[in-house]
């Protein structure tokens, strides 16, 4: 094996491992669409005075648990440093989320204030994720989400905050999620071609 071949192997293997550290965006897309749907249905629900205002949020909670257990089982064959960071970040994210939801339920926070805080939390998550993955759309999404969060401070009604929340889900999770998924598929195909060409 020549030195040039050695370098080529090192580059290819590191590039392969790097791809493992990329996120396929599946989780963001599912979570984003769930938030988007819950916000939009809640908006319609309040407008037409149909069910309990929080009905669709309760459905979201249950759906999240079911989808997590059924479709997102941990079957990874490799542990990366970024993967470990994301695990801890997601634990922190969901604890903070539950904290805010509880604060709304025990009336420590108003629903409008609580959802404004949630939007800000999405921005924080997107910034850390985007920075760790060196994924620019997620970093941009973080600032868009924060802008929506600040706008949320000035809304008065539950309907308005639901619309802003739907926009935050779109900007913070759905759009960057779809971009990440597209990039992940392209990089995966390129790496596969590189490996079989050795």
């Amino acid at each position, binding site marked *: *094996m020549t*030195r040039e*071949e*050695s*370098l080529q*192997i*090192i580059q*290819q*293997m*590191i590039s*392969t*491992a*790097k791809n*493992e550290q990329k996120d396929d965006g599946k989780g963001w897309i599912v979570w984003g669409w769930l938030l988007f749907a819950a916000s939009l249905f809640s908006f319609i629900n309040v407008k037409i005075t149909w069910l309990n205002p929080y009905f669709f949020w309760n459905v979201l909670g249950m759906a999240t648990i079911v989808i997590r257990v059924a479709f997102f089982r941990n079957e990874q*064959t*490799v*542990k*990366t*440093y970024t*993967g*470990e960071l994301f695990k801890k970040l997601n634990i922190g994210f969901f604890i903070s989320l539950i904290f805010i939801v509880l604060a709304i339920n025990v009336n420590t926070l108003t629903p409008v204030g609580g959802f404004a805080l949630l939007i800000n939390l999405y921005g924080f998550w997107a910034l850390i994720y985007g920075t760790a993955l060196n994924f620019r759309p997620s970093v941009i999404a973080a600032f868009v989400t924060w802008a929506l969060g600040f706008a949320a401070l000035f809304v008065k009604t539950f309907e308005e905050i639901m619309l802003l929340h739907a926009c935050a889900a779109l900007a913070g999770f759905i759009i960057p999620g779809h971009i990440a998924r597209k990039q992940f598929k392209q990089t995966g195909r390129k790496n596969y071609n590189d*490996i*079989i060409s050795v």
Partner: protein
Amino acid sequence: MHSQLRLSVMSLLISVKEAEFTFIRGKTNATAGNLSVQVNKLKEAGYIDVIKQFKDNYPQTVCKITAVGIAAFDEYVKNLQTYLHQ
């Protein structure tokens, strides 16, 4: 590290925290037998740790680069760079 497969294994493990044997096999396109021999050689040199355990009642082999392995890989890359700059 002067074998293509051993170098591939080291290059993979340097970039991740730990990896299962099946993952390494998939990424290097090596046969299980050949990979097993090379992994054992790296283990004997103290470059990697090999942890054999059970996960959901199935045997699982996890490989992880050691501090000695990181230093050796670093040295190997430095030597390559020195040669290329000559």
